[in-house]
């Protein structure tokens, strides 16, 4: 029940994001959107994910967007073209996807294929095989450690990329400032 309400809120926030021209409002709405989805993750039993989404989506990424807006300006230009073509493309894609969901297992169906393959093995044997109770941690760090290694490398590489593009200047001493004048 709660998740239906949260999902409706999410949809409303998404529409507001499309309609606003003031980018500050858009970024704050995106933060709200992230926080709502974090709440949704809690109701769907994904506490680890909710944690991360709340800290990243509502915290760090909002701050990064705001810092970017300080540099690029808060107003969006009024579009010259009417967005009919995008609307048509999006509607057709959406309709095709909705048609696809008709064949999907219903929400919270215990017979869904996703629950049949590796998950039961993780749930049954990981507490004894790995010896720690949090299955998310044991799958993340042990069974799928190779994946996670790749993810950490991607994060590191993205960090290197940002530093290459923007760079961090050494701490400004008064001498530097004087030279700049």
């Amino acid at each position, binding site marked *: 029940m709660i998740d239906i309400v949260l999902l409706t809120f999410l949809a409303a926030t998404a529409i507001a994001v499309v309609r606003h021209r003031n980018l500050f409002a858009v970024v704050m709405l995106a933060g709200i959107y992230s926080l709502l989805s974090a709440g949704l993750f809690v109701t769907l039993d994904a*506490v*680890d994910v909710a*944690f*991360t989404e709340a*800290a*990243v989506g509502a*915290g*760090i990424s909002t*701050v*990064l967007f705001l*810092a*970017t807006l*300080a*540099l690029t300006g808060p107003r969006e230009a009024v579009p010259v073209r009417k967005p009919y073509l995008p609307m048509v493309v999006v509607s057709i894609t959406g309709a095709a996807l909705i048609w696809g969901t008709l064949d999907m297992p219903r929400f919270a169906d215990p017979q869904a294929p996703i629950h049949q393959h590796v998950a039961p093995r993780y749930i049954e044997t990981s507490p004894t*095989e*790995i*010896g*720690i*109770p*949090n299955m*998310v*941690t*044991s799958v*993340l*760090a*042990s069974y799928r*450690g*190779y994946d*996670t*290694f790749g993810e*950490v*490398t991607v*994060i*590191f590489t*993205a*960090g290197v990329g*940002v*530093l290459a593009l*923007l*760079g*961090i*200047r*050494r*701490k*400004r001493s008064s001498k530097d400032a004087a030279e700049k004048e």
Partner: protein
Amino acid sequence: MRQTHSDKDYQVLQVVAKLLVPYILLFALYVQFHGDFGPGGGFQAGVIFAAGVILYAMAFGLDKAMSLLSPQVLRPLAALGVLIYGGTGVAGMFLGGHFLDYYVLATPPTAGQHLGIFLVELGVGLTVTCVMLLIFFAFAQRAEQAP
């Protein structure tokens, strides 16, 4: 963050931030090291720790935060995190297992798993914290210099 306001204008923010930041950082460490038993782990701890420092930077100014955790220190630490992760994997190979095989790290095997997961999560947490802070510093410094 610009100097158009005096420090007094931010007093409420500063007092609240001063109260909150230590607990956020402590909570991040709890999430990091308690991740085996409750919800948590390196990714979550990394972003929470970074969020705590970002709050500090926003309340007290970027320069103070950057002298607390200088980018010159964060850069090697970010690489060190990946190195810890990879090193744990290679250590498993040297001890006769496969890459990222924790069973050979200690006896009994579950203790090896514990150790391996602890090290790997430590590496993840270190890299995520440092990269998030570096990205924030890079953006915030630019934003401060903007006209």
